[in-house]
């Protein structure tokens, strides 16, 4: 049986490279830069706003309109092969005039590289960045969480709705600095709205794609489902 996806082995890009060792004596600022950063700078030029190396990890701040091209290039180009998106998140700073940041954590297994790509969004415009869902399917829930907590809209996401809070949640975006810790509504109103939510609206057992997994089910279960048996109440 062949795997339906390509298996990437760590360090497969250069088999003659020495075995990795844990870095020692890493300086706070100005350590060894990830070579991808300079290559992004060479390819995208002015779109790269800043390159930082903090504790040995490289951060590339790029312009919001180019970030999709940069990440697509990092994923597709044979010299980069960033095949693993480990995180998408947002940052809001306490200073109100500081822009909101969106952060992508990318990892290249073949090259053994880690790169942090950032975008800064000014607050006087709607918080929108392109979704990287078309490149990494893993971005689906991470972008939903980021939207849920910060209200950053990921343009091009196939199903951008709340993931941690329930879908009818109307109080705002909890990790924003202007959000009061206890929420905006009274406790009774919060409880009333929470009790009005239907937890099975989208997450019932039937909906958890039995249809998708049908061929993988055991034979007896397939026969029972064909006969019209259903789970749940």
């Amino acid at each position, binding site marked *: 049986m062949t795997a339906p996806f390509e298996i990437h082995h760590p360090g497969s890009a250069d088999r003659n490279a020495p075995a990795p060792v844990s870095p020692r004596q890493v300086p706070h600022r100005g350590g060894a830069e990830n070579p991808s950063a300079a290559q992004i700078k060479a390819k995208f030029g002015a779109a790269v706003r800043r390159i930082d190396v903090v504790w040995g990890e490289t951060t590339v701040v790029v312009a919001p309109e180019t970030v999709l091209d940069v990440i697509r290039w990092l994923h597709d180009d044979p010299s980069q092969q960033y095949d693993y998106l480990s995180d998408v998140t947002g940052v809001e700073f306490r200073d109100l005039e500081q822009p909101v940041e969106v952060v992508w954590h990318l990892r290249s297994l073949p090259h053994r590289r880690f790169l942090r790509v950032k975008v800064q969004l000014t607050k006087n415009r709607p918080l929108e960045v392109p979704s990287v869902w078309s490149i990494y399917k893993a971005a689906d829930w991470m972008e939903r969480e980021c939207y849920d907590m910060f209200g950053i809209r990921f343009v091009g996401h196939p199903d951008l709705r709340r993931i941690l809070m329930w879908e009818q949640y109307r109080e705002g975006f909890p990790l924003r600095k202007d959000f*009061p*810790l*206890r*929420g905006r509504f009274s*406790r*009774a109103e*919060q409880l*009333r709205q929470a*009790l009005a939510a*239907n937890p099975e609206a989208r997450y019932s057992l039937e909906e958890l794609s039995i249809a998708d997994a049908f061929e993988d089910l055991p034979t007896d279960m397939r026969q029972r489902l064909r006969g019209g048996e259903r789970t749940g109440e």
Partner: protein
Amino acid sequence: MGLTNRPERRVVEYDPRSQEGWVATRLDFLVNWGRANSLWPMPFGTACCAIEFMATAASRFDLARFGMERMSFSPRQADVLICAGRVPFKLAPVIRRIWQQMAQPKWAISMGACASSGGMFDNYAVVQGIDTIIPVDVYVPGCPPRPEGLMYGIMMLQEKVKRERMNDSALRNEMEPDPRSQLYIPAPTINELSEPFGNSVHQTRSGL
């Protein structure tokens, strides 16, 4: 173990001024004795309290001594709902429905600070005490409570069960929530119950 002495076993006494006859009180005693010593818990474990609950059920503390060794993972066969851990608002309809699915007679234990009062999570996401969602019989304090604490709470519940009377008509009434708001206690009471207390009164992070 550090348990206090076992509470004195209460015997049903015949009070001539009550309307209960000797047969009724004896039957009460028998039924309550049976119920109190075979409480099947429905574990609703959401956080670290559930770990202590598991320890209580495991061999060292051995919940089976109280007739509770059978965890009932179906609410329809459970007698006592043990809510161990914090309940976020998103889980409020879930615990409400589990409680409604349990058959009478049923009781609820709120285990730990978070389930009882919201605990340290005085924030936008956590219910400030599950008594705003379902009626609670015994609150067990602690963060998390030690297994002895939970067992003491269970013994308190057993005492409560043993004092029940068949002719108490209010006892087995299902508490119906308001059909419009789904709240079973008035909104001002919920707000009052959810008021911050202790150190969190002085928290200033709410406003910017």
